[in-house]
């Protein structure tokens, strides 16, 4: 049975960023599970050669940072397998490190590549890898965590934010885990992982009620393959559902997707994604109207629909003002959703970006022919150009009234403002 255009569009929007009409049409003949498999298939993902600026000592850290952001945004914009980039973004907001503290773009890039290559595999493998990632070792201070002088920062967040959530452990467990993680640090360059046995506390520790000589990776195994596996599966399933569908899934949905995730081999993220995308609730009204586009998602959509590259659209000028600067999460808890993106302050930043993009798009001829169309057709063309597949009646009538008024006044700005306005509608600001 074919899948409706609306459902395909919704899935592509959430699993990626901003589907083009042809991408939607190519999948509608398939049944839903087959569409989901197409979305999950990342075999066509192109390699991700790093931006040459990053790590080049002749280029300033600031320019490296700009290049790094533009490089990633362009991957989000152009990848034929956008789910890989969407999940990379998810992990960036989950296993948070920030350039603010890490200090080197090359370390953030290396971590980003790690997220990308492991984005849809085993959650345990990913967690083990990120625990030893140099940027993470620096960001959460485990590089300073040595026997006799434990630093609890990483040990606490490993449980509170990365795996099981608050309330699933006690302070004693944080202390024990911090001791287990002593010695997992950085080499003398400060940029590569090294285990220093002399700095490792090899004594007996009691973690989650079990006393033995825990080491760091064994702590993760206990959390993700031992006694806390089901708690962790539920924690991650809930967070991923919220990221892709809508915040705070109902119990029945959370139970079901957690069960699928738990039944997979070593907490396989692809299995969890498949479970989420095949749930009927994923296509329900609470889901389709349930997420505000995050600034990164909005920027990628705007660039994609206008056909403008990051280098020409300069999203990095505006993302901070919108509240979501890539490689600069605000704190270890990462970014939040919906309400977090709605304020006059963030609106101004969004509008600034959109307006800047407008002049570039206009110069390239976007919507150039709409001046010859009746107002209703011109508005329909504009909304469809920006991927608004089901605009609200309110939006359509307001834009038509605006265009009629602009034409009656013989204003100069029909074409540019017809580019600006759709991107500032609630329709476009929703991931809807």
């Amino acid at each position, binding site marked *: 049975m074919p899948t409706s255009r609306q459902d395909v569009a919704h899935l592509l929007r959430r699993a990626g960023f901003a589907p083009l009409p042809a991408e939607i049409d190519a999948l509608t003949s398939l049944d839903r599970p087959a569409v989901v498999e197409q979305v999950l298939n990342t075999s066509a993902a192109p390699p991700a050669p790093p931006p040459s600026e990053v790590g080049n000592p002749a280029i300033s850290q600031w320019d490296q940072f700009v290049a790094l952001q533009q490089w990633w945004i362009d991957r989000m914009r152009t990848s034929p397998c956008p789910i890989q980039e969407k999940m990379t973004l998810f992990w960036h907001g989950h296993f948070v490190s920030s350039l603010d503290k890490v200090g080197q773009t090359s370390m953030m890039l290396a971590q980003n590549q790690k997220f990308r290559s492991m984005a849809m595999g085993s959650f345990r493998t990913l967690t083990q890898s990120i625990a030893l990632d140099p940027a993470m070792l620096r960001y959460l201070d485990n590089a300073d965590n040595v026997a006799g002088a434990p*630093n609890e920062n990483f040990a606490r967040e490993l449980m509170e934010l990365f795996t099981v959530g608050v309330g699933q452990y006690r302070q004693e467990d944080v202390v024990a885990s911090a001791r287990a993680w002593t010695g997992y640090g950085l080499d003398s360059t400060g940029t590569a992982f090294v285990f220093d046995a002399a700095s490792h506390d090899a004594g007996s520790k009691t973690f989650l009620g079990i006393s033995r000589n825990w080491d760091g990776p064994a702590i993760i195994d206990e959390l993700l393959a031992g006694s806390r596996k089901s708690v962790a599966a539920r924690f991650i399933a809930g967070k991923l559902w919220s990221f892709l569908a809508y915040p*705070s899934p109902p119990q029945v949905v959370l139970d079901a997707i957690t069960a699928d995730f738990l039944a997979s081999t070593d907490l396989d993220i692809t299995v969890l994604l498949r479970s989420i995308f095949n749930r009927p609730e994923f296509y329900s009204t609470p889901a389709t*109207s349930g997420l505000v586009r995050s600034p990164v998602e909005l920027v990628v959509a705007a660039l994609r629909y206008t056909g403008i590259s990051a280098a020409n659209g300069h999203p990095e000028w505006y993302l901070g003002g919108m*509240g979501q600067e890539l490689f600069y999460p605000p*704190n270890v808890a990462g970014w939040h959703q919906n309400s*977090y*993106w709605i304020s006059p302050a963030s609106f101004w930043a969004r509008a600034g970006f959109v307006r800047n993009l407008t002049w570039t798009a206009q110069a390239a001829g976007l919507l150039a022919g709409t001046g010859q169309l009746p107002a209703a057709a011109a508005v329909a063309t504009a909304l469809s150009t920006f991927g608004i597949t089901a605009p609200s009646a309110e939006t359509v009538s307001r834009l038509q*009234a605006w265009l009629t008024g602009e034409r009656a006044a013989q204003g100069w700005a029909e074409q540019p403002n017809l580019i600006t306005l759709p991107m500032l509608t609630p329709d476009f600001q929703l991931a809807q």
Partner: protein
Amino acid sequence: MTRPAPFDDTDFASVYPQLCRPETPSGLTRRRFLQAGIAGAGAAVVLANPWRRGLSGLATAAAATPLNAGDGILVLIMLGGGNDGLNTVIPIGDGAYYSSRPTLAIPAAQALPLAPGWGLHPSLVHLKTRWDAGHVAIVQGVGYPNPNLSHFDSMDTWMRGTTTAPAANPTGWLGRWLDGLTSPAGLKAVAIDTSCPLYLAGATTQAVALPTALDGAFGADRSDPSDGRMFDAISLLGQGPSGLGPWGDALAANGTKTMALGATIAPEYQPALPPGDLTPQLVLAARLINANLGVQVIGTGFGSFDTHTTEAGFHAAQLSELDTAVQAFYDTLSPAWAGWVTVMTFSEFGRRVDCNDSAGTDHGTASCQFVIGSGVQGGLAGRAPSLTALDPDGNLIMTTDFRTVYATVLDHCLHANPATILGGDFGTLPLFTGWTTAQPTRRLLPARPRFPFLPRKP
């Protein structure tokens, strides 16, 4: 704001974004929103006579509810991440301080002398001048009962202003003050940030979030008729139900609100705000006060103060920013308003008494608060906790409940009933001498520099 289970929790650095709300939370009914917020005032004007009232209807709306003689203005500075109280207000006369912090103690000779046995961090030079003038009170040992060392839980407690378990839709202490106002129209409370922190969010109304940069603020300059028609289209999108559900409604209403707000506040962004983290926030705060837009509470803040490693230099820089910012605030503030204003800092907790082996300090409990203003009873207030009689984690035992400080400013600055807002009687502290009684003359609104809205026209 709800705290969605199970993952939405944090424990590090500034927890601010998590304790923030949208401008238009979906939990508010549209009617309440229109009654409560600035969009209410703006929307009424838009419907009647869109954009034809000079500075827009908002200034009019705000001016219709000017501050009353004796009303105070409260400016809050959040020091996110847990400010080290012991290295801010330093017990230079206590040997236990020096023995606990061999790598981090500030020598008595470097501290700025406050009172016998006490010194101020050397970065706080301007604050010291203000202290010498008798305009700074320092409340010591402030905390909350049964402290929890989590950033989130601590800041959540401080922002809610209660130690009871969070409700499904918790409110902040100043949000409840806003809720209780009979006519909270206009810009009664402002959060200088991209969203509204919980302490300024109530059940039915909340502070308006303003950025520190309006870069070409969309909607602020209507001199071009085509621009004006575009802004009107956005404004009108939020006049009715969006047909897109509660988030669509919130986004549409935010557009309406933003269009109304831009014209009102754009002049306050000229000339450009100074660089810095807290400094531009406080300069904007002072300008908003000078403009007499009806603002009574302004929230600002910066961080991080989470000084786990190599604290000394970092902490000194952060306190220097605090010092610079407060000075810039008073340099900007009109003397006519200065007597009305109280500035208060807060942080979720202090730091451990012992320094750690990374030349930093771990999460602690009680800390100090600065209360600044010309009506303040300058000096040390409260009681400094013992550095040797500690709790089992090696942390200070608080001597002043944070709600006592809140009650004091609610009572004195905002003429509110603290017991109603805080859910109990926590007493007050003698932090104020009184007010400058003369009511400031409302600033006339002169011709202002035009805001440079810069569309690149073809």
